[in-house]
């Protein structure tokens, strides 16, 4: 979308001011500032300088990923950090990162005579932070948007009306909806990260709140096999660029033109 988000918000904020003069302070207070504010811990560690990148991307090295041992450290770490609830009924399930069978993750790439270790692998999948995210295009309230400075697809839980159009539009099944109140289903609430309420959509945000204080995404940090590599795609010196230059990598559903920024080394 060619519209400058901040300008657009200012314009719609002004329009809204005219419409509902009762609530201008809240409107501006919430959206004129950078949205990172709502998810940043109250007092960030003073030593952490924010990680800055122009285009964040992740590389998943499936050769290193310990799928055969059923390792789910990345999933556990992410879900713990972000107060992701656990539901017994798969219908109500919420997941930011999870392991999908190779056939599910690369739906059109699999064939039955694939190398054994690939055929039976379980691929970590999450929001792809697409360059051209279909979810952003369809959202009727701009509750989800692509951050200009680094391409992260963000989500504003306070503005989401719960129409789930973004879920219908996402070709990767990366978005979850709070069908029920999530709070009673969180094992241990981490006060440093907000919990959600029922009726809103949520998903992986590349740990924007951790980047802001100089930390890597929690899945990357938790991976003992170092199979997940995070970095700036526009920095020619970065590790992600080196890996991309060295290895043949694949992406999920490249034919759709969404340009996912999660790359897989097979």
């Amino acid at each position, binding site marked *: 979308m060619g519209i400058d988000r901040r300008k657009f918000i200012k314009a719609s904020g002004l329009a809204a001011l005219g419409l509902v003069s009762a609530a201008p302070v809240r409107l501006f207070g919430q959206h004129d500032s950078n949205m990172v504010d709502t998810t940043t811990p109250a007092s960030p560690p003073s030593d952490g300088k924010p990680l800055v990148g122009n285009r964040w991307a992740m590389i998943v090295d499936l050769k290193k990923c310990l799928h055969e041992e059923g390792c789910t450290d990345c999933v556990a770490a992410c879900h713990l950090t972000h107060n992701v609830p656990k539901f017994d009924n798969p219908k109500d399930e919420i*997941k930011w990162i999870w392991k999908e069978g190779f056939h599910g993750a690369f739906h059109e790439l699999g064939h039955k005579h694939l190398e054994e270790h690939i055929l039976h692998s379980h691929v970590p999948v999450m929001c792809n932070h697409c360059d051209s995210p279909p979810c952003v295009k*369809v959202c009727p309230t701009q509750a989800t948007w692509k951050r200009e400075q680094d391409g992260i697809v963000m989500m504003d839980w306070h503005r989401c009306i719960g129409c789930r159009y973004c879920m219908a539009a996402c070709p990767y099944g990366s978005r979850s909806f709070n069908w029920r109140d999530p709070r009673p289903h969180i094992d241990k609430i981490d006060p440093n990260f907000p919990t959600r309420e029922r009726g809103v959509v949520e998903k992986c945000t590349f740990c924007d709140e951790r980047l802001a204080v100089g930390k890597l995404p929690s899945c990357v940090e938790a991976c003992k096999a170092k199979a997940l590599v995070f970095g700036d795609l526009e920095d020619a010196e970065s590790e992600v660029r080196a890996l991309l230059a060295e290895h043949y990598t694949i992406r999920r559903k490249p034919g759709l033109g969404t340009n996912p920024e999660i790359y897989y080394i097979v």
Partner: protein
Amino acid sequence: MIEKALYGDKKYWGWLILLGAVIGVGTFFYLRQFSEGLGITGLSRDVTWGFYIAQFTFLVGVAASAVMVVLPYYLHNYKAFGKITILGEFLAIGSVTMCMLFIFVDMGQPFRILNVFLHPSPSSPMFWDTIALSGYLGINALVAAVTLSAERKAVAPPKWIKPIIILSIPWAVSIHTVTAFLYAGLVARPFWMTAVLAPRFLASAFAAGPALLILLCLLLKKLTKFDVGKEPIEKLAVITTYAMCINVFLVLMELFTGLYSDIPEHVSHFQYMFMGIGEHTFLMPWMWASIILAVFSLVMLLVPKLRRNHTVLAVASVAVFMSLWIDKGMGLIITGFVPNPMGAVVEYSPTMPEVMITLGVYAVGALLVTVLYKIALGVRRQLLDH
């Protein structure tokens, strides 16, 4: 004018009380959904839209079909439709209201619905659909009120209303086109990504809407002394016949493109719909029923002698309506999500609370249409009495 709705016999009040009771039950279950969340529906991470959105999609068509009486009457000066135009417009008002209610009950955060206007997003078809639907409701309410009050005073409607009536014709087409665009542009859902979706929506709408209008006219004749006459009913029957033929033709186009190309991502949806995948066969009996009803109705409608018999016509109209309701209200939306983008089959079927809330919304629509028809017929009768 509104006071006309306050005088009725026992049957009228009995019907209203029955509808009120259904609305009450629906409201009870909605309050439950409101406090517990959409978790009480059959919807899931994989099938995120279901019964509510499907009803909305179907009823947009019923609303749009008012154009099938407005256009011949106002554009071609087809006088025989004079008596039923207002019925078509009031049916549209009832249908659009139901559409809006179905969207409302589907929202995870219903109190934030104004965000659609506070933070408008022109790239989202949902934004345009909101505008199209509310505009159409406004146009129809205005046109119906102005023309009916002119009729009551036995004067010609004011000149300024004519352009608005003409505007209602493309607007009706737009509401169903934009609704089709909600689905047809999604890269994630190959089942919906077809250029024929909007034309198919319109064809099915122009069959289902007039079929319902025929049934309502026949019902009014039976229950009240109001008789629209033979000619308009037969014309509506012809419109239904043509539209149903075009609809079936377009469905066959979809089947050819999907099945002959044999692209797995396209075929799998049709397979789920008509054959089921593994033990997942929830939709299969419904879809076959829809096909049988469509063929059955076409046989009756295509033979002029049968079509002119009002009993046969009533049966055919019920068959058309049911066939298309199953197609849109059950099949279209759910199948778009099954199998999911990972190729997994996660089934959906509506839960009891979901069905009750749906019935409640339909009851609101029926109540609205009943009261509006009561007013229209009251005005007509008053003219006859004088």
